[in-house]
């Protein structure tokens, strides 16, 4: 059940990343580049979450890299939303 939730979150992020990157290739709008990077990062965050809590033993803790990836991703999006939009 929990695995399905994380997997769905990862899939949704990946879908957004793919659509935004495709949009960037078409329109060359920088905002789309940064936001697609953000959703790639969120997808990675969700996949790491899935791996960490489901597959890895409790001795290995991926929470630091997970959370840093998430924070970096959102930061990229904020950068794009502030600087790349007039």
């Amino acid at each position, binding site marked *: 059940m929990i695995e399905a939730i994380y997997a769905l979150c990862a899939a949704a992020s990946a*879908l*957004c990343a793919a*659509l*935004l990157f*495709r*949009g*960037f290739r078409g*329109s060359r*709008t*920088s*905002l*789309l580049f940064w*936001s697609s990077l953000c959703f790639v990062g969120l997808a990675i965050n969700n996949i790491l979450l899935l791996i960490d809590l489901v597959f890895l033993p409790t001795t290995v803790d991926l929470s630091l890299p997970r959370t840093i990836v998430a924070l970096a991703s959102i930061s990229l999006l904020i950068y794009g939303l502030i600087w*790349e*939009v*007039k």
Partner: protein
Amino acid sequence: MISPGIQRLLSTSVANHEALQTLLLMRREPERSWRADEVATALNLGSDLARSTLQALVDGQLLRVDTSAAATAYRYAPGSSVDAAVVDELRQAWLAQPLEIIRFMNANAIARTRTEAIRAFADAFILPRGRRDD
């Protein structure tokens, strides 16, 4: 004050000054088919600009491509009677209060550039040929 119908038209299908002049030109002689180069000469536009403007008006359902002519020609053909009425209204308004119309269109153009990046963001999520996600 511009009527809501004209405002809608100017915000959607007749988005720039070339489109407005082209539309008014075609409306003046509704029976005639115009080629892109004829429109370009009449309005002193580049032929590429004339062609893209004409195509945009076709997409906005105000003109029709005339297939009977040998070369690609366009003809005034509003999609609905509502559109026809609004275009006639626009004609009157353009004669009576052109500055109002220009001011409105300029404000639209500014708003449009401001939201260009955001619209690109939103439009990126239009799925190719599909209507559903998943």
